[in-house]
């Protein structure tokens, strides 16, 4: 999730300083009571602690501890380990007082069995938390059983949508200084670069569990409105993109690119390390979320140092595409899957709530996003200007971002853009902001993504990983020539008969919840 940002900051900032001691301020609570010991489980969200920094004793967590008048004992597994550790913790049925996780469905299922308490009454009496988390957000985080177990992380500051982000420097160099306007022009560009730089690995993928088609593998699927593992609403019915003619058309393009050696010959078996090594070799583009590309303090996007920009929408889409709107982005929820919970085993839920409030305190916000005046930023003409290499640009302080559990990671936008304006060429910064703004507008026009609201049955949840596996395998086999396109069609029919019930359930859900979904801003239900 935030790994890319973390790597970016670590690799591209050269300022090394001490961890800031954020200023203390107002908002101290629970200070007249006895200081207590509270336990907490939290993921690092892909932002590991620098060597020597104690998760339970650093300037940032101390602000939370002082606010709640507690001593926190923290367990903070890395992002790679959190799913296993979270699941093991849940299966042990022994929980700390406060739990942070982004496995909200698992947390909700266990909460319904008694793992967590309903936090509505605490929330209703907490202006500190309400400042960041609105009642609408709480409604969105409400469990299917009608409980408010989770205090969700907001995502209102995030740039919306996702799109194709590409190596602007390569595109301009090999495409006469302009963006390709059609799929055919993109294909020509790939061939031109491959011819000029034969060692390039322009497109690849890596395997991640049941998902084997990722990032740089996806742009042509995106332009055909048929990203793997997704669904679309067409004629009032939810259909898997895998079963669409657009998907097949894209597979044929990918097969061609594979045969020409433009798509990495080992795309189906790469692990992240191999993929990372290939990434250095001119990988041209990928599909990614806008919120990963908030301009920051780094003069260039690292590894390799290059200018990455969101590609504009195509001037003309492929004939196979049923409607251009399917190749456009949609809005995300104003909350993320991250959330804070209080265990039903907590002996002091009131104090545990104070800890949650501590994560919403203004002192913590200032410390994370701006740091200390004179050390991390200066005030010029009434505006805060980050000092180069300091604040979140300092690798030794960047980990603090993962404590923005109630502000949202994207709240760094303002501080990051202020920092970027000092180190990026103005035209490059403008290109990035324009790219984000274009996606934002497109997302607003298309409304909320239906996926955010679907409630799959237990049977569907059990079969989804298997269905994804089927999609991966069939797609890879067709591209590598292990099966013919006629056999691919047979596989699509097999998919429909085996896993079609998942989409049937979704269609039924849409039918039964149309008014509610419309009210929530889901426009695609009428597509």
């Amino acid at each position: 999730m935030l790994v890319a940002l973390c790597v970016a900051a670590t690799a591209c900032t050269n300022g090394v300083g001490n961890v800031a001691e954020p200023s203390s301020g107002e908002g101290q609570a629970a200070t007249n009571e006895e200081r207590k010991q509270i336990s907490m489980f939290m993921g690092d969200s892909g932002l590991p602690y620098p060597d020597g920094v104690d998760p339970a004793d650093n300037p940032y967590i101390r602000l939370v501890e002082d606010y709640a008048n507690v001593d926190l004992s923290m367990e903070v597994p890395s992002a790679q380990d959190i799913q296993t550790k979270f699941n093991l913790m849940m299966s042990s049925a022994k929980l700390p007082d406060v739990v942070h996780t982004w496995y909200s469905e698992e947390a909700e299922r266990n909460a319904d069995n008694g793992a967590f308490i309903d936090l509505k009454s605490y929330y209703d009496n907490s202006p500190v938390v309400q400042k960041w988390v609105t009642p609408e957000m709480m409604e969105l985080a409400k469990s299917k059983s009608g409980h408010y177990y989770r205090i969700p992380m907001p995502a209102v500051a995030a740039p919306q949508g996702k799109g194709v982000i590409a190596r602007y420097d390569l595109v301009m160099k090999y495409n006469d200084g302009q963006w390709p306007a059609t799929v055919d022009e993109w294909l020509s560009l790939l061939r031109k670069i491959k011819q000029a730089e034969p060692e390039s690995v322009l497109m690849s993928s890596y395997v991640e569990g049941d998902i084997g088609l990722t990032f740089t593998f996806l742009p042509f699927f995106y332009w055909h409105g048929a990203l793997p593992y997704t669904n679309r609403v067409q004629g009032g019915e939810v259909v898997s993109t895998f079963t669409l003619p657009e998907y097949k058309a894209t597979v044929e393009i990918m097969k061609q690119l594979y045969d020409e050696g433009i798509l990495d010959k080992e795309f189906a078996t790469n692990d992240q390390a191999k993929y990372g090594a290939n990434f250095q070799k001119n990988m041209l583009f990928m599909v990614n979320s806008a919120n990963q590309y908030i301009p920051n303090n780094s003069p260039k996007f690292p590894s390799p140092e290059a200018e990455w920009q969101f590609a504009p929408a195509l001037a003309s889409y492929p004939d196979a595409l049923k409607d251009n709107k399917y190749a456009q982005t949609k809005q995300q929820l104003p909350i993320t899957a991250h959330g804070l919970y209080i265990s039903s085993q907590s002996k002091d839920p009131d104090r545990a709530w104070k800890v949650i409030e501590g994560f919403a305190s203004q002192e913590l916000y200032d410390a994370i996003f701006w740091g200390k005046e004179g050390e991390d930023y200066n005030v010029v003409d009434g505006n805060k200007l980050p000092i180069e290499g300091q604040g979140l640009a300092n690798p030794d302080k960047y980990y603090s971002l993962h404590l923005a559990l109630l502000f949202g990671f994207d709240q760094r936008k303002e501080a990051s853009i202020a920092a970027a304006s000092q180190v990026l060429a103005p035209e490059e910064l403008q290109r990035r902001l324009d790219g984000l703004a274009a996606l934002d507008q497109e997302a607003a026009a298309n409304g909320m993504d239906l996926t955010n609201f679907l409630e799959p049955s237990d049977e569907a949840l059990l079969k989804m990983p298997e269905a994804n596996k089927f999609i991966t395998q069939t797609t890879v086999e067709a591209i590598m020539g292990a099966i013919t396109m006629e056999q691919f069609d047979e596989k699509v029919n097999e998919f429909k008969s085996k896993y079609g019930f998942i989409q049937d359930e979704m269609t039924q859900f849409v039918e039964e919840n149309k008014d509610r979904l419309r009210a929530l801003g889901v426009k695609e239900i009428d597509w």
Partner: protein
Amino acid sequence: MHASKIDGASAGKPRRRKRRGSYKTQFALYTLIAPVLLLIFIFNYIPMYGILISFQDFSPFRGVGGSPWVGFKHIAYFLGDEAFWQVMRNTLIINFYDLLFGFTAPIVFALLANELIGSRIKRLVQTISYLPHFLSWIVVSGFFYQMLSPTEGIVNAVLGWFQIEPQYFMVNKEWFRAILVSSGIWKEVGWSAILYFAVIAGIDSSLYEATMIDGAGRFRQMLHVTLPGMLPMIILLLLLKLSTIFAIGFERIFVMQNPLVLDVSDVISTYVYRVGLLGSQYSLTTAIGFIQSILGFVLLVSANRLSKRLVGMGLY
């Protein structure tokens, strides 16, 4: 016992004394084995109550007492799931190959290594053969992927000398099981042969001398002395191996498989990992484990009976 036999004063009640002495000795022996039995009871028998959760919709927070009973729902689910039967078939096929080639390889290796002249060379061969055992499966997997890579692998480089087109072995369903079993043999053959080396070392050397006097060459000595000497150990390990034929190591499969070979590589342990650990379906995966154990138990008992009938040897 010996003391009681020579005690003249107690000659009138030898039987009772002998029995009492026997109790004493047996008590000492039982005391010695008691901690082992206790540990087995605590760690192997008490946890068996967990089988109950395969008949419940188990939640750790409700516990065994509070979770609802659902009868055979989970067993019926996976027995009716086409995906389960595919992974069951793969598990049996891979285990069959492991049994056929992986089980026999250490026997052949031990026999051949035993024939090496010079104890230094013998020790060197044995030591080198152990080394791969200490590599983790992730390293072995990387090694095989690298070696068999169509672009950078040494195997395809050699094929290239003979004008043979590069082969992408790791994504080829026909090759995958062979590679998987070969990698297992390469990694474990030396380590698995240790027991056989120990057995061979314990064979009475006079037997070899006798066969030599009878005119037997090295091959006949191996056939008529070494191999029969190894037979009890081979039978023992074979029976233990048979009891695990419905199970297969997770790590080896997980790190070697890729999307193109899932049809032939997905096994019960990877299925259980996906459904159980990632999907938190405790009851379903316990039900699978339960049935797996029953099948393994039945197979072990049957194979033991068959072995006793055919070669007069068994586990018990």
